[in-house]
Each structure stands twice: as C-alpha cells, then as structure tokens.
C-alpha cells in the first residue's frame, strides 16, 4: 500500500528563525496521526505547511504522489476558531463550495450538505446561522463543511481548544467516529487521552523537530524520549494531579 500523504524533508524558516526543520512523515490510508508537543513547537505550522497555507522553505508535501495545493480538494482543514462564514446558514456553509467549486446543482449540493450535517449530528439545525449555534455545534458544522468535499486527508488544528470543556466531547466524538470509518487524518490536540485512544501513531514535536513518532502505547507508555517524558509528566501534573503521585 502506498502512503496517502508524504511529507519529505519539510522546512519552514521565517527570517533567521527555523520553525520546522526537515520533517519527514508518511501517512498510510486510514491512519490517524496525533500531533503533540509544547506550545510554540511548530504543530500549527506543520499542519498549515501541509495544507499549503504557510509557504515552505524546503522539501515536499505529496498527496497520492502529487504536490498538493490549497483548494485542490486533496486536503481539508478544520481550524481552532471554526471560521464559519457568519452570513450563511449552516447548510449554506457546507453547500457553498459544492456549488461554486464542484459545480453541483443546488438541489444535489443541499442534499449532500444535509447528509454531511446529519453525519456530525446536526441534521436538524441546517437552517441556523452560526451566531445561533453553540461553539461545539459550530465546530461540527465546520467539520461537515470540510467533510462534504471528501478530501483525501483531514487536518485538525486544536479543534476543541476554543470550546468550553463540556462542549469538547461532542466534537471529539465526531472526530473519533470519522477515524473509525477510515478517514485519514492528522490531529493536533492537547487532549492527551483523546490522542492516545484515537491515534494509530503519535508524533511529538519540539522546536520544529520530530522527537518521536511511534504508536501511542510507546509514546505514552513511558519508554520514550526523555523530552517526551518530561512533557507528559508536566501535562499529567496539570490535569490529573493526585496527592501521592
């Protein structure tokens, strides 16, 4: 089997600052890659470079063997801030690209948009504008919008970081279902439990370098790199502190 996504010696520099240093990664169809690492380590930059939103200074990003460009349908991206278009209903947010990019007749596009919304559990709310939706619902519309274009690879950049804690579950569940149905994805998240249970592999970034890329059992199991261990220890102390730990 060939990889869907090949990242080869990817570099990004801004001025003298090296944000990403020779990152290589092959992603097989159906894989869910969890990307973790300290703040400022380059997780968002990696996703944005793969998507083509940030210019790269060296290396290649190939989807099914071809260089991907933003908007060519190969890669879909879900943002931390949802980025729904406020003047369109949920359904129109999903249907717009189907109509104007894919040239689908309005009726088919609307039907497909409804189907995508149903998939994320929002079948009943298609007529609402983003302002009338909760954060979790907005993010699910954003997922449906990307999903409807059937990209080969889906990128999630901290999809729940802008949400209240009680709203994260509904979004994480949608992503989990997608992963289970075989959607290839890269997910940046600080929800370690989610990353551990979702991912086929976990990539740990630090200072723009892949420190470790391994199955979650290895990364979270404590056998890994010292830097990863320190990061996870700090994380655990923050979210799951117990008296005798």
């Amino acid at each position, binding site marked *: 089997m060939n990889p869907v996504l090949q990242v080869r010696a990817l570099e990004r520099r801004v001025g003298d600052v090296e944000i990403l240093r020779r990152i290589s990664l092959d992603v097989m169809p159906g894989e869910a890659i969890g990307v973790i690492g300290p703040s400022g380590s380059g997780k968002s930059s990696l996703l944005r470079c793969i998507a083509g939103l940030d210019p790269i200074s060296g290396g290649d990003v190939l989807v099914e063997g071809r260089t991907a460009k933003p908007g060519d349908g190969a890669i879909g991206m879900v*943002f931390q801030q949802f980025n729904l278009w*406020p003047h369109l209903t949920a359904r129109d947010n999903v249907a717009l690209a189907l109509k104007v990019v894919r040239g689908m007749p309005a009726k088919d596009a609307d039907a497909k948009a409804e189907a995508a919304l149903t998939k994320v559990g929002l079948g009943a709310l298609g007529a609402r504008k983003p302002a009338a939706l909760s954060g979790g619902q907005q993010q699910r519309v954003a997922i449906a919008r990307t999903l409807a274009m059937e990209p080969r690879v889906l990128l999630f950049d901290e999809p729940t970081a802008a949400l209240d804690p009680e709203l994260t579950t509904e979004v994480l569940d949608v992503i989990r279902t997608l992963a289970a149905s075989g959607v290839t994805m890269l997910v940046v998240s600080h929800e370690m439990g989610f990353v551990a249970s979702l991912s086929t592999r976990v990539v740990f970034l630090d200072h723009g370098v892949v420190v470790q890329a391994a199955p979650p059992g290895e990364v979270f199991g404590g056998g890994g790199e010292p830097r990863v261990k320190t990061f996870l220890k700090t994380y655990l102390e923050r979210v799951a502190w117990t008296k005798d730990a």
Partner: protein
Amino acid sequence: MIQALNDSLIAAAQGLPMTLALWLGGVAIGIVAGFLIGAVRFFAPLALTWPLAALVEAVRGTPFLVQCFLLYFGGPFIGIDLSPVVAGLVALSAYGAAYFSEVFRAGFMAVPKGQLEAARMLGLSRPQTVLRIMLPVMALAVLPSLVNLAVILIKETAVLSIITVPELTFRVQGVGSATFAFAETTLVLALVYWALTEATSWAARGLERRIERRMAA
C-alpha cells in the same frame, strides 16, 4: 414674522428636491467610487496605491468649503468650467468617496483571516471569495459607518449654498435677503435639516435592526 416663516417654508420646499438630489447623487457616486478606491488600496500592492492614498489624505485633510472654492473658482483656470450644481455634485462625491474608501478599506481588513483561509482550503477562487465571503461579511460591519457618513454628507450639502448652488439653504437664505427676516429663515433651515438627519438615522437604525435579526436567525 408669520409671513417670513411662510415664505421660508415655501422656499424650503422648493430647495429640498435639489438638496435631496445632490445628497443622493453624492452618496451614490461616493459609495461606488469609494468602494473602488478602497478595494484597489486593499488588494493592489502598496507601490501602486500610494498616489491614491495621498489623494484620499489630501481630501480628508482639507475643509470641504476650500475644496468647493478650488473646484468652482479655480477649475476654470485649468479648463474645468462647471456650473454650480455640477461643481457641487462633483465636490460632494469626491469628498464622500475619500471617506467612504476608508470605511471600505477598513471593512476589507476586518474580515477575519481564518474565514478566508477556510474558503481557500475549500477551493473557492479569489473572485468567488471576494464576492461570496468578503463582501457579505464586510457589508454588515460597514453599514453603521456608511449611514454615519451619509448623514455627514446631508449636512455638507448646506455648504454648497456658498458656491450658489440653488439648494435648500440657498433658497431659504434668498428669502432672508429679500425680507431681512434672517432669524426666522435660519430657524426654518435648522429645523428642516434637523428633521432630515434625524429621519435618516432613524431609518438606518431600523434597517440595521432588521439585518441583525436576520443574522441571528
């Protein structure tokens, strides 16, 4: 005194159509030209747009009255010989365009970058993104400023009386000069303009509320 008030009201009724025509014309031309200038200044590279920027700043930095004088009295010396009405319309449109262009430029800048990146990832072309995302998103944001400017332009039309445009102020002042009842005529003028600007603001608030309600649907 009653006579003077009566004459003033008649003159006001006669001058009002010209004031409204100049205002609507100035607002319409100003919005179209201002939109184009704002769009060019937002989308074109800086090297191309600085003359436009200088022009906008020059118009915004000088009094409307001086601009009217420059065009109406200075124009004929360089072959621009306009009637008072045309000169007034041109001056008002140019003044409006300079301010409107800043509103639109700010509107373009205020469209969240992420919403444009989302459009780009989904494959919308540049024109599609401008037409279907940027314009509708910014239309809402700029509406209050547009109304505000339109109200300012109603008031500026009064200045055109100084270059003898036969609009509201000019006509009513004519009654004043004929009867020396300047107090009455000026009072009528003040009340008519007050009513005009209040009505415009009131109508605009209604429009804004309706749009807001539609957005929250």
